[in-house]
């Protein structure tokens, strides 16, 4: 059995014997690797930029958990599940809530959330433009900024005013029989730029009606996805800004896959070049291989030597390919960024200061692995051909 270091030395000597041929063969696989590395880096770069933009522009740590319907069965939000969510290590605060739609007597519709005020405070960190928060079970209400503005203007409702809201219901004969609720407006929230601006918040203290939502505040953006997974594990559905990230990731998975599929064609060509080179090389060395067998090389030794040559081509191709890929990515970054910004407009100005390519260690390692594996696969046929040479015939050939 030949030692691996000896195999490597001999193979290295062999492949570098014809330097130009070696270089061109390596370049073939290297260009393929470079194309894949460049394209995947671009995909990963744009993906990560998009995700960063979503993170900047939205409140990623806020989730709304709802009851889910699976296989036609509604999975309700039970007290046990609320407790599970509240105990989750990634959750700062979680407050169960009911969503109710009211209408004013002048038929202005508004959405309200009925939830414990302490819990709401912990999840939403409410700050008041005016007035104070509601007290539990008192029929008090707080308006979001936009809602307060609308109702003040069209209904004349101000802090300290009592007002009536209707919930549409029907009597036994199917005729509308609205239920009237009296509220006292105690406060108006500061403008937040989210859904709360258009909501009314109450705290009825009702323990009998089931909850249809849980608002959850997560510790940090990094733990959002694990928390979502655990919530979904409870049979509930979760909604929030993270869904945009999820959608972007799914989209880019497909884009990167399709693009690397196209660039992969150049890898196939590179692999065919290696196979071609090795077949020629084995043919040229037929007599040499025969002599090696005569002086003690087994078929296995010959197989290992030829595959080892392919391995060396693969390593060289991987290194050069990765270097070319990084250069390629750099070019895309400097040239392509301006094009992207010009084409997509100001909405994507987040691209201006950032890199649109992202060369990750994973991409580099994959590039290396692809080059080596493809080279070895390409070498199987020539190596088998060499190892199965008949020594006496091989020595006769010149």
């Amino acid at each position, binding site marked *: 059995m030949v030692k691996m270091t000896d195999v490597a030395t001999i193979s290295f000597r062999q492949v570098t014997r014809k330097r130009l041929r070696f270089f061109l063969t390596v370049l073939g696989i290297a260009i393929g690797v470079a194309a894949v590395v460049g394209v995947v880096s671009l995909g990963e770069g744009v993906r990560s930029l998009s995700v960063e933009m979503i993170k900047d522009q939205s409140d990623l740590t806020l989730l709304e958990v709802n009851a889910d319907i699976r296989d036609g069965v509604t999975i309700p939000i039970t007290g046990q599940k609320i407790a599970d969510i509240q105990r989750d290590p990634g959750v700062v605060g979680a407050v169960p809530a009911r969503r109710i739609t009211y209408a004013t007597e002048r038929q202005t519709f508004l959405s309200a959330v009925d939830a414990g005020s302490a819990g709401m405070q912990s999840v939403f960190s409410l700050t008041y433009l005016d007035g104070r928060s509601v007290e539990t079970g008192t029929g008090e209400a707080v308006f979001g900024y936009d809602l307060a503005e609308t109702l003040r203007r069209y209904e004349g409702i101000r802090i300290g005013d009592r007002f009536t809201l209707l919930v549409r219901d029907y009597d036994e004969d199917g005729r509308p029989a609205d239920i009237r609720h009296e509220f006292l407006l105690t406060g108006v929230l500061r403008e937040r730029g989210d859904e709360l601006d258009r909501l009314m918040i109450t705290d009825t203290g009702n323990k009998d009606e089931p909850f249809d939502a849980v608002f959850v505040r997560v510790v940090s953006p990094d733990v959002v996805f694990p928390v979502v997974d655990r919530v979904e594990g409870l049979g509930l559905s979760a909604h929030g800004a993270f869904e945009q990230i999820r959608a972007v990731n799914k989209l880019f998975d497909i884009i990167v896959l399709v693009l690397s599929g196209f660039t992969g064609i150049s890898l196939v060509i590179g692999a065919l070049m290696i196979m071609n080179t090795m077949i020629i090389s084995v043919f040229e060395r037929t007599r*040499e291989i025969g002599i090696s067998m*005569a*002086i*003690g090389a087994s078929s296995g030794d010959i197989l290992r030597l030829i595959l080892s040559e392919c391995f060396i081509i693969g390593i060289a191709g991987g290194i050069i390919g990765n270097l070319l890929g990084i250069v390629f990515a750099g070019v895309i970054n400097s040239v392509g960024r301006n094009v992207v910004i010009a084409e997509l407009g100001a909405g994507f100005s987040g691209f201006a200061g950032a890199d649109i390519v992202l060369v990750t260690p994973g991409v580099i390692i994959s590039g290396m692995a692809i080059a080596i594996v493809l080279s070895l696969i390409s070498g199987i046929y020539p190596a088998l051909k060499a190892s199965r040479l008949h020594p*006496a015939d091989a020595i006769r050939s010149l």
Partner: protein
Amino acid sequence: MAAIVRTENLQKVFGRHVHALDGISIIVEEGEYVTVTGRSGSGKSTLMNIIGCLDQPTGGTVEIAGQNVDYSDPEQLVSLRRSKIGFIFQQFSLIPSMTAAENIEYPLIFSGVPGSERKRRTMDMLELVGILDRSDHLPGELSGGQQQRVAISRALVAGPNLVLADEPTGNLDSTTSNEIITLLKQINEEMGTTFLIVTHEPSIWFGTDRTIHLSDGKVVP
């Protein structure tokens, strides 16, 4: 003396009708210096290839250093080639990308001999054949005679019982041929290595213990 090679009714048929070997039975004793002669196509090279475990006979048996050769067992064939048999071919049998020293070392790599031991034995060989100062030269930088000296060293470096040489002086001028022949004979006498040499050249016959003449695949008595 023990027989190093014993063949019994050796047959080699190519295709259906070409009888390259037709019932060869020979014995080569340990330490002998034997030449094999015959016209082109008489079966010399075929006989050498079969004795050298590079080709298999279609009939008959071969015994090398007391071992019956099983031609269907690649491991035994490889092991015999590694440890019992050395080959010297015509010129141009060296690996062009390896220096003289590396060519000599090459068989030892396959036998798994450690690096330091390989170096020592290679140097001994270079000294024996008188080209120590050429150890770092590539075959292309050596004369024909020097190349054959390297080839001889490569055949001997693993310490084989039997060296098979197929036209070792083919392509060499007569002065160089004589030097190579003298060297082979000297090695035979000093080291006791058995030689079986295929040749056209009458000069090699001098000093041989015995000459086997082949004609149409048979030994001429």
